[in-house]
């Protein structure tokens, strides 16, 4: 290949890696160091840049495991800018968009489709996509849980509705006694307490407040209707009202479990130590069955400084990702040791505290002689500033040029000024790759992707990986997770 083409390929690869990293960790919410507005501006720019320059690859990133916020954004951007595309492109994008909408949680998918209306995107193609999306859903259930959204969507896209659905959505629940059992229950719930407990939790909650049912009574009786994630989320509220909500912690997703654990005080965690520890291990094992990972001698350098408390929009998320990664790597490695920034006897009792000194635990990890070092940190090390980057650079240049030890930096925080997760090392011939991560259970996927992030793999390999993922993504009719957007 001519040198120019080589450079183009390299730049494309770098841009794509940058975009994938950013889309893995950015949710447009406030972080510790940058606020929500900076985040939004940065991620908007990235979307526009990648869509403008590499449209086909941009569409394919829908299959690459970007987070829900960005998936919805890509869907909207693709559909809003589809003028002048060839039939082939439209068809491919249509398939990807349909699969993406199926994979999103319902509220996000609805909001994305409603955003199209605000962007002025109409026409046959948009209507066809909406019809296909709605055809794959249980509309009676959505009619009572996402009533306004469904109604607006149906209205704007002229979707024909079967049976009593049209009447229920547009004329309201008061109209008549319904034949459909779910609608009838919803109507009766406005007059009788008993009917409330047959509705899903989010719908029942509002009705119970209207009928002035005591919170404790309500929670106790709605328990059978709660989904697993709702049970986890309501643990704190239930404890305050002296209601016990059984939840199988071992079946909760790893990062959600870690967030729940961190929301308890250290004293409360100590009381339930055995249960929480077992749950973390079980959840990590479940994540590994979904995405297998087998490692040898692994050291993890984990950040528990004060900046891992993030912001009110996503409290303690970086620390939860670190805790989840710790549990996952412990299960996935033959030999494993964790090195925290502030040494702790028991990772179960950690709180965000202290300065970010990554250099010391990194040096300790390297002297243990592992095959792989995973650094989980937001990249803002300040004791000394840039210490970890220098350690990596000098280690690679002078002490281990043969690369017996691999180092990977996992970053759960999007730094708006840097248009991506902040890198530890920016200089040197082979800098440590920085990868964005939102959920600890995605760690195996992200580690597999690390080969591309350090620039050693050609663009062709990345494109092939994406193509394979697209096939799998489009082929699955994966039902969405039943919960709303996570913090």
């Amino acid at each position: 290949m001519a040198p120019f083409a080589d450079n183009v390929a390299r730049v494309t690869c770098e841009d794509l890696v940058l975009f994938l990293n950013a889309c893995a960790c950015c949710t447009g919410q406030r972080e510790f160091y940058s606020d929500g507005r900076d985040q939004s501006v940065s991620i908007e720019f990235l979307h526009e840049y990648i869509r403008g320059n590499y449209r086909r690859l941009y569409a394919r990133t829908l299959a690459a495991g970007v987070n829900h916020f960005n998936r919805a954004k890509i869907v909207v951007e693709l559909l809003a800018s589809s003028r002048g595309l060839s039939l082939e492109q439209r068809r491919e994008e249509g398939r990807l968009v349909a699969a993406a909408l199926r994979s999103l949680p319902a509220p996000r998918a609805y909001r994305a489709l409603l955003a199209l209306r605000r962007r002025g995107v109409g026409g046959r193609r948009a209507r066809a996509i909406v019809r296909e999306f709605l055809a794959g859903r249980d509309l009676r259930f959505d009619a009572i849980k996402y009533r306004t959204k469904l109604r607006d969507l149906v209205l704007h896209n002229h979707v024909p509705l079967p049976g009593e659905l049209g009447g229920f959505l547009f004329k309201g629940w008061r109209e008549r006694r319904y034949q459909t059992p779910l609608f009838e229950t919803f109507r009766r719930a406005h007059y009788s307490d008993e009917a409330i407990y047959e509705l899903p939790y989010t719908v029942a909650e509002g009705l119970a407040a209207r009928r002035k049912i005591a919170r404790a009574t309500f929670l106790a009786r709605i328990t059978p209707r709660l989904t697993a994630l709702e049970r986890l989320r309501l643990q704190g509220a239930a404890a305050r009202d002296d209601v016990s909500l059984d939840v199988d912690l071992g079946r909760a997703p790893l990062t959600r479990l870690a967030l729940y654990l961190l929301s308890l005080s250290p004293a409360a965690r100590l009381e339930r130590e055995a249960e929480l520890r077992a749950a973390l291990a079980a959840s990590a094992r479940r994540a590994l069955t979904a995405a297998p990972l087998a490692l040898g001698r692994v050291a993890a350098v984990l950040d528990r400084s004060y900046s891992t408390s993030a912001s009110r929009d996503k409290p303690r998320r970086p620390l939860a990702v670190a805790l989840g990664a710790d549990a996952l790597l412990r299960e996935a490695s033959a030999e494993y040791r964790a090195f925290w920034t502030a040494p702790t006897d028991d990772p179960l009792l950690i709180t965000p505290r202290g300065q970010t000194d990554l250099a010391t635990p990194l040096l300790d990890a390297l002297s243990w002689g592992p095959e792989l070092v995973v650094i989980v940190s937001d990249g803002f090390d300040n004791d000394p500033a840039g210490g970890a980057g220098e350690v990596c650079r000098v280690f690679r240049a002078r002490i281990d040029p043969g690369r017996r030890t691999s180092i990977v930096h996992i970053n759960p925080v999007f730094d708006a000024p840097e248009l991506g997760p902040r890198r530890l090392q920016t200089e040197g011939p082979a800098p440590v790759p920085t990868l964005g991560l939102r959920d600890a259970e995605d760690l195996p996927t992200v580690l597999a992707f690390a080969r591309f992030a350090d620039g050693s793999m050609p663009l062709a390999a990345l494109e092939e990986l994406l193509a394979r993922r697209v096939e799998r993504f489009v082929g699955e009719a994966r039902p969405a997770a039943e919960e709303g957007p996570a913090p």
Partner: protein
Amino acid sequence: MNFRERAHLALTGLRPASAQAFGAVRLVPLLREEVRSDLRLGARAVEAPTLVGLRGEVQAPQLAYYSYVPHAFVMRWTSDGSPVAARGAALEDPRRPPNKRPWVELMHRMRKREAPDALRLLPLHLAMEGYLSLHFGGPDVAWSEYSREALRSGLSPRIERAASGAMIAGLDDALRTFEVHEGQTGCLVFVADALAAVFVVPHPDDYRALHRSLIHDFFGDLIYQYALCYHDVQEHAVRVDAAAVSDLEGLRAAIARGRADWREFTAAMASGVLAAPMRWEEVYRAGPFRLRRFVSSLRPDEENHIGEAIVRDSGELEYCKTFRLSAAQARRAYLLERIAAADWDLRAAADSLACSLDDLLIRLRNAGFGYLLKDHILRGLPR
């Protein structure tokens, strides 16, 4: 006022650690090498304009200091080195019911002993009062230039202005995003790499409680302007010379050297406070601790700071707060000093300053002391 003792303000017992910069504000943490619990500091909210009676009765003071006081510090100590007993929420003033807030708070004395082992002091106002009371008595000889008011009531009223922490752009964000070290008991605040304040407390737990209270302090005019003019400061990332390192131990030593460089940085950047000779006045003695306040040399062409400190008998700095005087404030105090040194004889003072009498009168008027001079003299001065 006395301010006769001359000594340096030394960060004895404290070690600077790596700074964290956010925007134009750089905070250098100070770690205490040996933490003892026989002196503890707590804050009590006041949040009201306060009239502090310095002399005379509380209700009818002969000499008063007036300012907006956000909080008072209560210092508790034991003389024998045993740890101070925790008192929890008992920092509330028992005489002041919490829901009756007066328009103007009346306080008796800048520092007041409330219990055998508790001293209430108004932080930073203690130092400011010392500065304002410099030569406050005014002329004691009835030279012809002075007005009747000057001869009767001295320099009263002596007024200075400062910028509250809330007005320092970026300070709140810098304090919010600062990661407090384990064992940290103080910090140096630099705005655009100019020393704004020194803040030291006796115990790390006290520091964690009081870290955000820095926003309630007041800062010098220069700091306010620098915070508006500058958006960021240079980041001091550590650099390791790769050629000099051949193994992990060498790398570890190189990183440790990078961390230790902060001691030199601090000494250089804070030389206005640490290397300059200060003039001290003792305010209170409690067990092995001395509460003192200081004023710098007040030379107009140098950095000038005022402050207060609690120093242990063995020399360790337990508590400190400083304030950076603006150039105008330093000039005012310097003028007063030179005139007082000449026994308030303006002609002699003008000679000592190597300027004419008219020049000195103009300087006095421009500094804001026109009210000391007779009307016809003021009017006779050229603009």
